[in-house]
């Protein structure tokens, strides 16, 4: 940043940081999307591609959070993190495609594993 931020030091500092370093860097993608989505119609092929890109990006976020987590989750062994994820997906299928059942089962498995592996 080229301008002087120190004028904002003090009580307002956390809010200035939040807007300049948190809000604007994220929001810019949403603003850009408003312009890029003009003229695109529901059901068009390009939207199928855009949705696939978004889904793959999201899978990338999942991979990062599961394969190389931070904090308390890192104390649970990788194999058990993967097992809890697989268990959640299995419960989704077995529970008649219930998203809630999948989340509940995966969470129970993960918290139990964290307890067993001394994340305390």
């Amino acid at each position, binding site marked *: 940043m080229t301008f002087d931020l120190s004028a904002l030091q003090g009580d307002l500092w956390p809010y200035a940081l939040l807007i300049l370093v948190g809000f604007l860097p994220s929001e810019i993608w949403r603003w850009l999307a408003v312009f890029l989505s003009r003229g695109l119609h529901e059901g068009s092929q390009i939207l199928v591609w855009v949705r696939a890109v978004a*889904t793959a990006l999201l899978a990338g976020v999942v991979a990062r959070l599961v394969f190389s987590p931070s904090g308390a989750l890192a104390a649970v062994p990788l194999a058990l993190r993967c097992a809890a994820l697989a268990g959640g997906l299995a419960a989704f299928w077995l529970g008649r495609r219930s998203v809630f059942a999948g989340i509940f089962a995966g969470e129970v498995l993960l918290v139990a594993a964290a307890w067993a592996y001394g994340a305390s």
Partner: protein
Amino acid sequence: MISSDETTAEVTEASASHSPLAEFGRGVRHALGYPAWVVGFSLVGVGSLAHDVGHPLAAAVLSTILVWAGPGQVIFYGGLAAGATLPALALAVSLSSTRLLPMTVSLLPLLRRSGQGLGQQFFLAHYVAVTVWMESQRRLPRLPAHARLPYFLGFANACLAVSAVMTGVGYVLAGALPLPLVAGLLFLSPLYFSVSIIAGARLPADWLAFGFGLLVAPVAARWIAGGFDLMATGLVGGTAAYLAGHLRSRRGSA
């Protein structure tokens, strides 16, 4: 329990009504069914991080309302705690939020109305985050055009409000939660994303994109530096899935 069959029933019920307020209320109710709580609980950790870097409670809650992107908020507070330089931190937050671009591009056409100004589009775009996007992709196409906007606003505002409160709860509870529960909260986002993507997949391309993304991500993380690996994962995995889905459907129809 919530299942896809119930979603169909909900939607049939919705098309009978014409009042925007009723649609808004339906959106709120469906969000409170479970999606708002999932995203809310996943943001408890953000409140704790904000507490640990010494920011005020109001700033923590405001971060959820303004940034409205969990991973970006984690990087923001985690980076402040680690003493990252501000330009580097802004770039890291921005790169982690790249997904908001394709998500918003694919969602806005579902909410389009004639005479919709730029201001309203910026306003609607702000609500786009993973939970709102995934649930909207699943629910909006089956709603009649007039019902979509009020339903979306009800759904998204309920998610945002619950999440803002839960961020505050996390701030107050910082350090008091047992670690296995903290691990469970951190696991909530990847678990929910995975199950919801599978539940919401409509085309082969959607399925394949998730699988390809999981496979490409570790490779990209290893070979592509500077935080651009997520962007590469999305473009490579998504394009491959689109092409594969396209080939499959062509072979199917031939």
